[in-house]
């Protein structure tokens, strides 16, 4: 246990330290400090004209339409195209729609197994490309938001920002990580599956492929879509403790750096430290809960002659160490990554609640760029509530928050539970959901709840017992992912656009400081009340009911 706690502290603490210089670098990058690179990027996409929030949003949507359209076409025609050594056939159109939506929105929900569905061209040219540019889209949106809040006259240029994020942040880190995990044993080949004759004379066919390149950006870009079906529990996707370490650090480092980047662009690093502290506190609570719950043994074996001194091993890999299950589950849902290092469906019931809570809150560092944007909504809400409590006009960094802004904040915040709970209710009441369950009773309800939480949080992990490659699931979660991606990006940009149009007031002694612990506590409470009250009834029907009735 002591070794486990030490390992967690070293991994998370070390990543916090590394995120600081990275955030500093990203802030410099998005402030235009690298003029020669910017010049090159401007040539590539034709200009750097400054955009207001509407123009920036239109540019973002236009590029995302190109992303979706290109990859939809590529996936739908993969059986006619080259780089398909294992002769993967045509995929159903509803699966193609779901997958294209899933990777465009940085979700990477996967209703398929990569090794038996997509060609290498589809994986690299379609899905991996989206893993780069969807992550870059999120970072770009955060940079634009921060510029607006920070008082700059324009939000920047979307096409320039995407290239900065993709080429100067994601690409170098991905090259580093891909090389490291290739050394650890992740395959990188264009050869098709290997056929071997086992020691007992049977034939085993072993899928392989260009996994190292794919896995690296999957981890770094809060994408989470695995090259192989079971993601980073697959030995070829995560062959050793050391590859696991590198993959976990890279899962959380850029989301952490995004907070520092935000603080530097708005020129309020202390405010960023308060936000970072709130996120870190939420993360610590979730980690403590998950590690504790998962140390309980597998209930199904308690009456049997089984040595149960090692916690719950179902769905876990020995080489990754006992701590990986709960730690990865928390990190991957705190951020919107969604890759897995253990099977979430087989976590103990209350452990399974922790990743769900992560996706419900969806801003404990969160997705690249968008996690901090989600947090901005809570910050605005907290500033508003705090202002009301002391009877002053609510302000945030000198921006007056009024009715129009609050309506938009509430719209963006309410959409999240509405999509999750509405979708869950629909599928829990109809054969669309009921006929696809891998477990019965309360755990079956958890599978549905998890799937919609994952889609709405743009997370992409799953309770994989669910038979989710059906037209109903593919279309429903595809739509949820698209709404849940673009609404919480565009609406905050609109809010900031509205704030930018107003005259900024000077902060006085009477203004609530957003740089102190008081605001931190306020923010923490607003998040907990909003998250806990909204989702507690659903949690009680799923994981809590299962724990109370079945765990002894």
């Amino acid at each position, binding site marked *: 246990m002591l*070794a486990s706690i030490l390992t967690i502290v*070293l991994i998370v603490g070390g990543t916090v330290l590394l995120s600081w210089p990275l955030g500093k670098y990203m802030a410099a990058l998005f402030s235009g400090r690298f003029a020669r690179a910017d010049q090159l990027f401007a040539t*590539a996409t*034709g200009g750097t004209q400054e955009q207001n929030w509407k123009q920036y949003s239109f*540019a973002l949507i*236009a*590029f995302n339409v*190109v992303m979706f359209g*290109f990859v939809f076409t590529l996936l739908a025609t993969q059986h006619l195209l080259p780089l398909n050594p294992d002769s993967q056939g045509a995929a159903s159109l509803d699966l193609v729609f779901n997958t294209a939506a899933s990777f465009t929105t940085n979700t990477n929900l996967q209703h398929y*197994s990569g090794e038996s569905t997509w060609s290498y061209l589809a994986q690299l040219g379609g899905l991996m490309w989206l893993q780069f540019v969807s992550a870059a889209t999120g970072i770009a949106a955060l940079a634009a938001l921060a510029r607006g809040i920070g008082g700059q006259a324009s939000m920047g240029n979307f096409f320039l920002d995407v*290239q900065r994020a993709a*080429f100067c942040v994601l*690409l170098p880190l991905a*090259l580093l990580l891909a090389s490291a995990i*290739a*050394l650890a044993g*992740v*395959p*990188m080949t264009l050869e098709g599956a*290997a056929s*071997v*004759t086992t*020691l*007992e004379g*049977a034939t*085993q066919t*072993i*899928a392989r492929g260009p996994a*190292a390149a794919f896995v*690296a*950006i999957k981890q770094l870009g809060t994408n989470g879509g695995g090259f192989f*079906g*079971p993601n980073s*529990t*697959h*030995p*070829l996707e995560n062959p050793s403790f050391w590859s696991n370490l590198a993959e976990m650090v890279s899962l959380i480092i850029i989301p952490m750096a995004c907070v520092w980047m935000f603080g530097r662009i708005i020129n309020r690093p202390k405010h960023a430290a308060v936000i970072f502290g709130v996120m870190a506190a939420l993360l610590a609570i979730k980690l403590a809960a998950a590690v504790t719950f998962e140390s309980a043994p597998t*209930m*199904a074996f308690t009456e*049997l*002659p089984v*040595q149960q*001194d*090692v916690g719950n*091993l*179902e*769905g*876990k890999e*020995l*080489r*990754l*160490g006992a701590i990986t299950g709960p730690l990865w589950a928390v990190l991957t849902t705190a951020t919107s990554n969604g890759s897995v290092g253990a099977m979430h*469906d*087989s976590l103990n*019931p209350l452990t399974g609640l922790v990743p769900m809570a992560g996706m419900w809150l969806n801003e404990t560092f969160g997705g690249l760029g968008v996690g901090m944007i989600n947090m901005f909504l809570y910050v605005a809400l907290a500033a508003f509530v705090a202002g009301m409590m002391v009877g002053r006009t609510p302000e945030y960094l000198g921006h007056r928050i009024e009715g129009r802004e609050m309506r938009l904040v509430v719209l963006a915040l309410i959409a999240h539970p509405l999509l999750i709970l509405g979708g869950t209710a629909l599928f829990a009441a109809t054969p669309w959901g009921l006929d696809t369950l*891998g*477990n019965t009773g309360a*755990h079956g309800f958890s599978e549905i709840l998890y799937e919609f939480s994952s889609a709405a949080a743009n997370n992409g992990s799953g309770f*994989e017992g669910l038979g989710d490659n059906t037209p109903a699931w593919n279309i429903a979660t595809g739509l949820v992912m698209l709404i849940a991606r673009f609404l919480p990006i565009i609406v905050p940009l609109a809010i900031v656009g509205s704030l930018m149009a107003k005259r900024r007031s000077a902060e006085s002694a009477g203004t609530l400081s957003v740089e102190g612990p008081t605001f931190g506590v306020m923010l923490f409470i607003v998040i907990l009340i909003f998250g806990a009250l909204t989702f507690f009834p659903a949690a009680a029907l799923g994981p809590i009911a*299962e724990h109370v009735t079945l765990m002894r």
Partner: protein
Amino acid sequence: MQYLLPSLRLWLVTFLVCVIGYSAMVLGFAQAVVPFQANGSIIEADGRAVGSQLIAQDFTSPRYFWPRPSAVDYDGMGAGGSNKSPTSPELTERAQAIIARHSATGDNPIPADLVAASGGGLDPHISLAGALYQADRIAAARGIAASEVRRLIEAQAVSAAGPFAPERIVNVLELNLALDQLAQ
């Protein structure tokens, strides 16, 4: 329209750099520096490919160490876990069958990893305890001393990451290859 053209140019330049350039660089690096791992860590014995060092394969003969159970029957083209809740009676039934195969009893309980399926269904390792648990059966089936089998296990067992993951584990395929070597 004013956004479509830059979007297409952005598509082109990101595709060239992040897909073609990036993949080629990683491919070149991996194939040049670690060709064995880059091609799936395929192990050869007597000139034929017998498996991947990283992928579990099924062993049923009492002469060999048995791996952890696999929810996908060790299918290298369709990996996956059981995805059953740890409270599921189906896990109990699966465990009972394995317990019977290992002849485990209350006095000699079986290590948990031998009855719990891994996440990908292809975990190449078992715990040190899980290997030692099978030593007597293998010694009897091969007509060799159990101490010899235990010595082999001890020689192969490694901890995944020293002080950070002190539990020792054994690679089943490599251990079974070493067993066959012993016989020759």
